[in-house]
C-alpha cells in the first residue's frame, strides 16, 4: 500500500513541530530578592480578578472559627480575612502585623503597640480590647494553638493601643506562634454581643471579605475598602475553586482558566516544563514527613527502643527525598530543616551509625526478621515515601507490608483507639515558624493525639522544655541539637524529610509574591501584593 504524499508531509510537519516544541525556557520562577521565589511587580496597575485553584477546602467541621483551625488549608483561606499581631518574614524573622512594634522588657514580658487606623470589615476600629479578648478566648477554648502560644499567664490592656502579655516562664517561640491564623485578632465585641457567629462567617481586619462560599466547591473574596495598608490589596476579586483532581488543576493552569494552582505531583515542574506562559515554583516548607512506631503495637514489636533505633538508623532520608519527592524535599530532624537554628540531621546519633549497628541492635533485641504493617494514606506522595521506607528496611532484614488506606480509614486506625492497635504509620506535621515549636508534639501529654501509641519519655520532655525556653543564640542552637538527638534516640516518631509545596502560576498573567520557604503552609501569604498582568 502506498502512503499518500500529503500524509507524509503532515507526519513530517508533526514530528518537526514536536521537536521544535522543546522547552522555551526552564519555567521555575527566579527572584533576585533573597528569600523569595517571586516578588510582585509593583509597577503593574492594581485591579482585576484573580482565579486560583486549591486542592481541598477549609476543614469545616469546626466551622470558620480561626482559633480552631488546625490545618494549613484553613490557615491559607482564613489569612485573606484575618490578621495577626505579628507576621513572619521570608527569613523567619518576626515582622510587624497589627502590632506596629513591641517591647520585650524581660524574657517573660511582651508589650504590643497596636497599629493605628486598623478596622474590621464592618468598619469598627480594632482596639486593645479585641486583642485581649482574642487571647482570653484562645486560652479558654479547645483549639490546639493554645498549646503553641506557650505559658501565657496574663494579658492586659495598658491603653487603647497597647497590650501587655506576661508569660509564666520564658518561651522563645512566643512571637512566632502569634504569627499564625489561630492567634488572629477577632472582633470580640461582635462575638460577645452575638451579632457575629464566628463559626459560620468571617469578620476580620484583613484585605479581603468573603462574598460567597460553597463548601468544597468555591470561594469568592472581594477587596475591602478601608484596609489599613495603603494601596492593598491589589486584586479586586479573588475566586478560589476547590479542584480535587490534579490533572484538572494542571489543565486549568495550562489553558489559562486559572492564574495560580496548588500542585501535589512532585513531577509537576517537569510535566509543565516548556509550557509557554507558565511557571512552577517549589516552595520549601518546614512541614515534614515522619514515621510513627507504635510502642503499644500488638506483640510488643516496638516497645524495645533498640528495635526503633535500628529502624531509624536504616532510614535513608536522602533516598526518600530523591526518589519519593523528586529531590524537592530535604532530610530533617525534629527541628525542621530550613528554620534558623535547626539541627543538622547528619549529626544526630542514627545518622552516624551504620547498617551493621542497626542489625546488631535487632539481634540484641531478638527482633531479626521483623515484619510489620505500615499504614499510609493514599494521597501522593505518601505511598512513594512508604515504598522507599520499605526498601530501606529490607537492607536490615525487616519486612514491611504497606497498607494503603483512604484518609478516613487511616485516621481511624491511627487515632481512633487508645491504646492504638496499628504497627507503624506515616504522616506529616506542619513545621511552623520556630525550630522548637513542632517538637512539643513529641510530648504526648501536651500533644494528646499520640497518647495511644507513644510512651512519655522524661529525658525527651526535658530536652523539649529546654529548647523552647532558651533564648536565641549559641545556647539555643545547642539546645535544639540536643532536642534532635533526644527525638532521634527515642525513635517513637521519626522525622524523615520536608514536604515541598508546588505552586503553578501563569507567568504571563500574574506577578505573585511567594516566599522561598514557608512555615505555616500559607502559599497565599503575599496575596495582597499579587498583581494581575492581563485583567
Amino acid at each position, binding site marked *: 500500500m502506498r502512503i499518500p504524499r500529503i500524509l507524509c508531509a503532515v507526519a513530517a510537519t508533526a514530528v518537526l513541530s514536536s521537536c521544535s516544541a522543546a522547552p522555551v525556557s526552564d519555567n521555575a520562577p527566579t527572584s533576585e530578592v533573597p528569600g523569595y521565589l517571586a516578588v510582585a511587580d509593583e509597577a503593574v496597575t492594581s485591579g482585576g480578578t484573580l*482565579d486560583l*485553584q486549591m486542592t481541598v477546602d477549609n*476543614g*469545616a*467541621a*469546626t*466551622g470558620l472559627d480561626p482559633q480552631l483551625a*488546625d*490545618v494549613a488549608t484553613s490557615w491559607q483561606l482564613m489569612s485573606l480575612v484575618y490578621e495577626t499581631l505579628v507576621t513572619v518574614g521570608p527569613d523567619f524573622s518576626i515582622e510587624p502585623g497589627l502590632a506596629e512594634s513591641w517591647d520585650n522588657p524581660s524574657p517573660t514580658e511582651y508589650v504590643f503597640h497596636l497599629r493605628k487606623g486598623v478596622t474590621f470589615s464592618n468598619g469598627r476600629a480594632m482596639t486593645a480590647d479585641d486583642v485581649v479578648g482574642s487571647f482570653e478566648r484562645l486560652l479558654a477554648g*479547645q483549639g*490546639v494553638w493554645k498549646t503553641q502560644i506557650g505559658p501565657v499567664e496574663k494579658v492586659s490592656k495598658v491603653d487603647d493601643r497597647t497590650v501587655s502579655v506576661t508569660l509564666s516562664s520564658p518561651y522563645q517561640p512566643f512571637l512566632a506562634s502569634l504569627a499564625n491564623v489561630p492567634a488572629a485578632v477577632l472582633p470580640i465585641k461582635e462575638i460577645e454581643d452575638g451579632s457575629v457567629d464566628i463559626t*459560620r462567617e468571617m469578620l476580620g481586619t484583613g484585605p479581603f471579605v468573603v462574598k460567597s462560599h*460553597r*463548601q*468544597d*466547591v468555591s470561594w469568592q473574596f472581594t477587596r475591602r475598602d478601608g484596609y489599613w495598608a495603603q494601596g492593598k490589596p491589589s486584586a479586586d476579586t479573588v475566586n478560589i*475553586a476547590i*479542584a*480535587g*483532581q490534579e*490533572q*484538572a*488543576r*494542571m*489543565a*486549568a*493552569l*495550562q*489553558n*489559562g*482558566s*486559572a492564574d495560580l494552582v496548588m500542585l501535589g505531583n512532585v513531577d509537576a515542574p517537569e510535566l509543565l516544563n516548556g*509550557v509557554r506562559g507558565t511557571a512552577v515554583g517549589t516552595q520549601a516548607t518546614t512541614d515534614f514527613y515522619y514515621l510513627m512506631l507504635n510502642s503499644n503495637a500488638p506483640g510488643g514489636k516496638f516497645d524495645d527502643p533498640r528495635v526503633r533505633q535500628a529502624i531509624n538508623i536504616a532510614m535513608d532520608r536522602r533516598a526518600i527525598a530523591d526518589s519519593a519527592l523528586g529531590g524537592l524535599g530535604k532530610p530533617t530532624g525534629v527541628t525542621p530543616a530550613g528554620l534558623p537554628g535547626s539541627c543538622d540531621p547528619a549529626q544526630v546519633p542514627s545518622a552516624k551509625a551504620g547498617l551493621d549497628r542497626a542489625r546488631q541492635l535487632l539481634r540484641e533485641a531478638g527482633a531479626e526478621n521483623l515484619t510489620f504493617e505500615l499504614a499510609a494514606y493514599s494521597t501522593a506522595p505518601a505511598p512513594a515515601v512508604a515504598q522507599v521506607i520499605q526498601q530501606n528496611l529490607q537492607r536490615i532484614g525487616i519486612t514491611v507490608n504497606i497498607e494503603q*488506606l*483512604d*484518609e*478516613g*480509614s*487511616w*485516621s*481511624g*486506625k*491511627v*487515632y*481512633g483507639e487508645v491504646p492504638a492497635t496499628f504497627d507503624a504509620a506515616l504522616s506529616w506535621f506542619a513545621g511552623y515558624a520556630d525550630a522548637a515549636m513542632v517538637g512539643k508534639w513529641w510530648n504526648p501529654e501536651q*500533644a*494528646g*493525639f499520640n497518647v495511644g501509641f507513644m510512651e512519655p519519655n522524661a529525658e525527651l520532655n526535658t530536652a523539649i522544655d529546654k529548647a523552647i525556653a532558651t533564648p536565641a543564640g549559641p545556647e539555643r542552637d545547642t539546645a535544639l541539637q540536643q532536642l534532635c538527638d533526644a527525638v532521634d534516640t527515642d525513635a517513637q516518631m521519626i522525622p524523615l524529610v520536608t514536604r515541598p509545596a508546588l505552586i503553578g502560576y501563569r507567568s504571563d498573567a500574574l506577578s505573585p509574591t511567594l516566599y522561598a520557604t514557608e512555615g505555616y503552609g500559607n502559599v497565599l501569604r503575599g496575596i495582597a501584593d499579587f498583581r494581575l498582568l492581563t485583567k
Partner: protein
Amino acid sequence: MRLFTWWLRRALSAVVTLFLVSILIFAASRLMPGGFAEVVLGPFATPEQKAEVAAKYGLDESIVVQYWLWLTTALTGDFGISMISGEPVTTEFGLRLPVTAQLTLFGVVAAILIGVPLGVLTAVRAGGRRGGAALGRLASGLGVSVPEFVLGSIVVFLFSRYALGLTVGGYVPFGEDPGGNLRSMLLPAAVLSVFVVAVTARTTRDAVLNVLVEPYITAAIARGESPGSIVVRHVLRNASIPVVTVLTTVTAYLLGGAVIIEYLFNLPGVGTYIVQAVGRRDYAVVQAGVLLAAVVFIVMNMLTDAAAGVLDPRFGSAAKGRKR
C-alpha cells in the same frame, strides 16, 4: 383492575427494596473504619470535642436508635444535616443536582440523536459491501470498551494544551453565565456521551438486526415496500423496547452521578459529592445519596416497564396477567 394490582405490587416491591437499601447503606456507612470525628476534627481534637460532635449529630446513640431516628425523619423529607457544611442534606443535593442533571441531559440527547440513528444505520447496512457498517461496529465497540477515565484524561490533556475556548473545570451555573456554563460542560458531556452513544448504538443495532429477520419484514420486502418505509413503519417500533431499556438504565446511572467524569473535570455534581462524603464519613450525605440513587433506579425501571407496555401491547397484556 389487574393492571392496578400489578402496579401496586411493583410499588410495594419498590418500597421493600428501598427499605432494605436503607438498612444496608446505614450499616455499611457505620461499619467503615474511622469515624467522622477522627477524619474531620483531625488528630488534635480533644475527647471533649469529639464527644460534642457525637452528641450534636446523635452519633452517641446506639446504631439501632440512630437508624430509627434517621428513617423516621427521612420519611418526612428531612435527610439530616451535612456534618461538613452544617447545611441540610437536601439543600446540598439541590445545589449539585443541576450539574448532574445537565450532564445526564446532554448524554441522553446525544444517545437519542446520535446513538439510535447510528445503530439503525449499522444494522441496515450490516450485509453491505461498504465498510461503513464495520466502521460503525468498531466505533461503538471502542466507545463501550475505552474506560471513561482514559478517554477523559486524554481529553483533559489535549484541551489543557489547546483550549479552543473550552474550559477544564471552572464550572459556572447556567443561570449565572450560560456561555461559561456550556464552555465548562461541553467536554465532560462529550466524553460521557461516547459511552452512552456507543452502548445505545450497539443495542439499537442488535435490536434492529433481530427485527430484520422477522417474517413480517420479509413480507414487507415482498410487497415492494421501500427500505426507508420498512425501517420507519415496521422496524423502529418493534426494536424500540431494548433501546428504551438501555436509555432509561443509562439515565438512571447518570442521574446517580457520573463520578469519574465529574471528578476528572472538577464538576460539583452529585457523584463527587457522595464520594467526598464517603471519604469524610459525612454519614447523612452518604445515606441520602445512595438512597437517592436507588430511588432513581427503581423509578426509571418502573417507567421502562410502563413505556414497554405502550410500545408493545404484548407487554401490557403480560402485565395484565394474560397468558401468552
